[in-house]
């Protein structure tokens, strides 16, 4: 018995040795990613992860950065702030990553940012739009626009393109993201001459929205702004159409998931949301990215979060290449110097607040089954 075990153990060693022999001489550079790979916002984390993996695959195929391959360490957060803190501490302290990518949800980025800041490890959030995220310190960056701009873009689109001057707002009061974006939309919408006819709240994960929708129906809005996440929005859309509300729905990048159309089906058709990118945007970079992504991940069309994950990783790689060393302060300076980076989600310049300044895309859900279709671009400032 013991002999058999010994033989097995020896056999098991062979691939390890073979792998060690095949490795290139330079040590790989380890980067970290933490995201909600499970839980109610699972598609966010999975898409981001895919985007990052695609970027790593491509750079490693080209021989890595200065001869060093990129290695990814990834931990699941379940969409839980405590898990996010643990995951990032593990990445920074145990795995000694040079930089951290993540998270999607602003709340989790806020929970983990102090860990990176204290350890002087740069963190790039691909898609946390709450303004407070990068205020955690000078090591925290993001490659997406922030909520004040997204709210403005939504308000501009509603008043300008749609000529909808009466809006109802339905906010998930349990989500920091939704509360912040909702506030910004209301502020800008009234500034642009619109009128908020009804403000309703719900709690994320609720199943019945009849009470709120009845109040909204009575107020007769031209448009309903719902800055929530896709699971709830899908349910709201179905119930709103059942109640005879025909006004189009408008939302933010929290809608960006293929799950939304699966939940809401035709109820979501003709609704709009502001996003980081649209898959049918007339841009050579986008076309190339989508082709690569479809090839790598079994014909899935990448959503905005995948694109942002891809951009965040590539900005990090560019910075690693330009940085004097892999030490935190040097890498931080290199990331902060990012200017006019040609990303899939637009040209990215990091401003002095470490936020990305770039355009916002408005997308319509059209067709059967509803697919995101590019409508227009709202430029920054």
């Amino acid at each position, binding site marked *: 018995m013991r002999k058999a075990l010994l033989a097995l153990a020896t056999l098991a060693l062979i691939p390890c040795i073979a792998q060690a022999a095949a490795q290139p001489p330079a040590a790989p550079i380890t980067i970290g990613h933490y995201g909600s790979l499970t839980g109610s916002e699972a598609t966010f984390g999975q898409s981001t992860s895919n985007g990052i993996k695609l970027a790593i695959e491509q750079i490693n195929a080209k021989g890595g950065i200065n001869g060093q391959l990129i290695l990814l360490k990834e931990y699941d957060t379940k969409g839980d702030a405590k898990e996010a803190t643990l995951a990032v501490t*593990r990445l920074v302290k145990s795995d000694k990553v040079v930089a951290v990518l993540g998270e999607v949800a602003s*709340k989790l980025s806020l929970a983990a940012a102090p860990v990176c800041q204290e350890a002087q490890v740069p963190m790039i959030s691909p898609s946390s739009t709450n303004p407070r995220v990068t205020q955690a310190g000078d090591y925290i960056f993001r490659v997406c626009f922030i909520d004040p701009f997204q709210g403005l873009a939504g308000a501009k689109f509603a008043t300008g393109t749609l000529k909808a001057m009466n809006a109802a707002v339905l906010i998930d009061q349990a989500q920091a993201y939704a509360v912040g974006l909702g506030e910004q939309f209301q502020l800008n919408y009234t500034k642009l001459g619109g009128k908020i006819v009804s403000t309703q709240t719900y709690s994320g994960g609720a199943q019945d929205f009849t009470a709120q929708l009845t109040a909204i129906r009575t107020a007769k809005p031209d448009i309903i702004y719902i800055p929530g996440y896709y699971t709830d929005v899908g349910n709201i859309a179905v119930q709103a159409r059942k109640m005879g509300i025909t006004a189009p729905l408008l939302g933010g990048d929290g809608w960006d998931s293929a799950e939304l159309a699966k939940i809401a089906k035709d109820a979501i058709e003709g609704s709009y949301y502001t996003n980081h990118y649209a898959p049918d945007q007339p841009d050579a970079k986008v076309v190339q990215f989508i082709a690569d992504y479809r090839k790598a991940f079994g014909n899935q069309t990448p959503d905005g979060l995948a694109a942002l994950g891809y951009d965040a990783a590539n900005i990090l790689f560019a910075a690693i290449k330009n940085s004097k060393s892999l030490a935190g302060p040097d890498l931080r300076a290199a990331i902060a110097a990012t200017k006019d980076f040609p990303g899939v989600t637009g040209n990215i310049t990091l401003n002095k607040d470490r936020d990305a300044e770039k355009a916002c895309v408005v997308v319509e859900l059209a067709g059967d089954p509803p697919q995101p279709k590019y409508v227009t671009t709202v430029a920054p400032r």
Partner: protein
Amino acid sequence: MPSALDATTNAQLRRPNLPLITLPWLACALLGLAMLMLGRFLGSYQETLMQQVGIFAIAAVSLNIVNGLAGQFSMGHAGFMAVGAYVAAATTYYGSLLHFNTAELQPGLFNFGHVLMLIGLLAGALVAAALGYLVGLPSLRLRGDYLAIVTLGFGEIVRVLLQQTSPQVNGKDPAEIAAFTDAPLRTLARIPLNGALGFEGVPAYATNLWIWTFVGITCLAAYRIKESSSGRAFLSIREDEIAARAMGINLTKYKVRAFVLAAFFAGIAGGLLAHAGVTTSPIDAGFQRSFEIIIVVVLGGLGSISGAVLAAIVFVLLPQVLHPIKDYRLVIFALLLISMMLLRPKGLFGVREIWNILPRRAAHTKPGATP
């Protein structure tokens, strides 16, 4: 072969002798020391993990008083924790702003920041205990499912109320700090607890030393309660309320006492969590968190203190160990729980403690030894 019930009652009726009193103390002290060492030598991830284990252990041991010993099925334990967390967090955060003019962590082993934390912990625990009294009162008339619904409702009320609070004073903006220190009461009157975003930026004074000291205190208190006349009253209420009443036990008094004690220590657990570098959000008061604590208590055995501590360790560490299997880790976790319930329906230790079980096992394996 004596039945399990006989063994249980025997264990309870035995007067606690010296080793029995010192054992939990010693165990906790050793464990705490080991944690400290681990934290020092293994780097910070393990340290963070140990902090969460300790806090979870306090939460589980405190819930064990009301769910395990007194048999009152409370599903609002996370609500008490959140109350303690918010009171403690606000005390330290706003106290630091007033005293140090910043919310940054003050260096040193012991300074006024630590005093603030201790005041906050006590205040949080007392507020939680007061709310425990309020929730304990309806438990006089309600039993089983109905009590569960009331306590569940309590947690949800706390969650929704916390979501309505106004933004907190930004500790990184000198102008906001100045405005706050000029008129602290006016600012505090609008309850600046940061709504759905969660209260953040609380200086992390709760190191493993502090947390594991409190684990020791909680375990000792719980153990003394279990072995006291109150503890026996709790157990008798759990087994049969009518019989307990017939034996002259004041149901009202003991049920409320169980709730207040449990809420007090839950408040401490919450306060420590807020000081361990974790953002406190309203979600932490919701039923999902309460379920997690219930799972730990049931896993460890309803009524077993050492069981609750052990289960808390497993509950925090297992998902971390299972990271490599990605999406399936939560499935495996659930499977482990189910198989546990099928194989050992009374939990790891039942109502007994680890030191009641280990010597017994040893005695059974020795041939000729009297059981």
